């Protein structure tokens, strides 16, 4: 088991290298001119050139990538923002935490509601417990979360004035953004839990259990569920990554200073170090989460557990 954990953690290194390289490469497909951006239109060409040289911008992409990584590893330095001149990490970290907190809230709510609903609708297939949630989830699959957000904002913030419509100062501020993001997220959880559960119920080993005379309840909870949860755990991990980035619409809509709106803002000001910093940070978080998912997987599935415990 330790071997497995170490092996998965080591995978973090090529991932971070790869992610930064990909992002660096993409950002440099078209040549930029950060010196001009920083100094403004009134600076002379020579000043701009000197600035570019100072930033190391004239070096090839690979060299700059290497220097960037060296900065992160040796000093935890993610570079300096072109627009605010502040340290990228200092600016990014608090906003990242805000997004993370929101995303975790949404994740918890969606898992706690969506997964049981999915199981229920698979078990009670074709009853009202199945058709109603399934139909609602099917419809919500066609609704972007920001549309739900706008609707909630219109009704509960603007018309009824029950909740604030922007910012994140108090608990009340969290209600609308979290619900808006949860509603669509939840319906996705319902759908993939249901289909995984249905698939599992259809397996031969479930029939074997029934043939033993096992009560239907035990068949579902003991035999079908554990197997059905394996793909669900993976899907939850995958979706959480998308959720972290996807919070951007909620952040924009409710004017929340999260990492998503920071990226959008940095893109519009062409603040390259900030864009790269945000992207790298979110990707690392996502990778760590996927490692966690793999560990949970190994815990549930004896096939994976056995592969690594033998060599211990």
């Amino acid at each position: 088991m330790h071997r497995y954990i170490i092996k998965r953690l080591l995978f973090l290194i090529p991932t971070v290298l790869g992610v930064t390289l990909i992002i660096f490469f993409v950002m440099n497909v078209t040549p930029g001119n950060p010196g001009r951006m920083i100094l403004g239109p009134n600076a002379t060409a020579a000043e701009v050139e000197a600035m570019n040289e100072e930033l190391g911008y004239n070096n090839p992409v690979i060299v700059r990538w290497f220097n960037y990584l060296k900065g992160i590893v040796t000093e935890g330095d993610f570079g300096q923002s072109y627009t605010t001149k502040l340290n990228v990490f200092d600016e990014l970290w608090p906003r990242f935490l805000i997004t993370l907190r929101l995303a975790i809230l949404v994740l918890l709510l969606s898992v706690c509601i969506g997964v049981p609903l999915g199981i229920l609708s698979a078990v009670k297939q074709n009853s009202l417990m199945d058709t109603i949630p399934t139909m609602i989830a099917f419809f919500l699959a066609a609704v972007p979360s920001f549309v739900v957000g706008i609707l909630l904002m219109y009704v509960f913030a603007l018309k009824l004035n029950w909740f604030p419509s922007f910012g994140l100062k108090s608990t009340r501020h969290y209600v609308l953004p979290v619900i808006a993001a949860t509603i669509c997220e939840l319906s996705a959880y319902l759908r993939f839990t249901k289909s995984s559960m249905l698939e599992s119920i259809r397996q031969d080993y479930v029939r074997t259990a029934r043939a033993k005379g096992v009560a239907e309840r035990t068949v579902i909870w003991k035999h079908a569920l554990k197997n059905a949860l394996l793909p669900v755990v993976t899907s939850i991990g995958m979706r959480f990554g998308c959720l972290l980035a996807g919070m951007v619409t909620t952040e924009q809509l409710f004017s929340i200073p999260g990492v998503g709106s920071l990226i959008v803002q940095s893109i519009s000001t062409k603040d390259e170090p900030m864009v790269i910093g945000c992207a790298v940070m979110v990707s690392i978080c996502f990778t760590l989460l996927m490692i966690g998912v793999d560990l949970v997987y190994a815990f549930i599935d004896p096939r994976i557990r056995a592969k690594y415990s033998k060599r211990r």
Partner: protein
Amino acid sequence: MTENNAPARSAIDLLNDGEDINFKRPSQVKEILRRLKKNKGAMIGLFLLIFIILVVILADVIATYEVGVVQIPDNRLAHMSAEHPLGCDSYGRDVLSRLVHGARNSLLVAVAASISSCLFGCTLGAIAGYFGGKVDMLIMRALDIFMSIPDLLFTMVVVAALGSSIPVLIIAMTLAYFTNYVRLVRSGVLNLVDQEYVEAARAGGSSSARIIISHIIPNTLGIILVNVTLNVSSLVIYQSTLSFIGLSLPAPAPEWGSMLASARVDMLRAPLLVLFPALAIILTAFSVNLLGDGLRDAMDPRLRN
């Protein structure tokens, strides 16, 4: 999301306990079409989709592009009238025109990205699965790393680097959606490579590429087709998301997402301005989902049992 990778099945499989067997039956394609025609949801989806496609084709007849982009201060938040059937937005632009020309942008980008991500992903998956060994390892490892960047984040980075235009959007969205196909086709190929008829084709002197195209691709075609269809729907939403956060086509190009973003400012005074683009997005995505779901059921009716 690919929920099930099973090939075409029917009630007959219940009899055979899932084993393949040849009965005297009508051809598979005919059978799938017959089941699809019986599926009310899919037919409604198809009908709505044809309507939307007609709107896209006839966009210029319904409303000229100019009234949707030229700002006329006198028309700010104008109510519905014969001249402006759905009224005007807060810049005095005709909403109907923006809606129908926005449909053109949305569908064009979504369909193009769905198809190109399929072609790109399938090619890569076929290469990885067929050649195996180091090629496979290289592709899959690169894919693992690539997939550690959340889709939307990567798309934002691409748009940040290349600026926003229709080709850039298609490329960015292709890169966000191709990964599923790589895994799908790769595992399909891995399952099939060992099977006898591929051995036979190889022994018969067929080239690798030929074997992939003539034997392996047709076997996974059903699932791929369902995926391409369903992806159009999520790509419509994806693009509206980009456009909502201001990273899609630059203003004043008509787009549903940006229409929503600008309409929400005047939401209290003109709630209908939010309603129209929201309905357009939902209707399009919903009808594609209906069709795609029906297609999947027609190919694998066991899912509905």
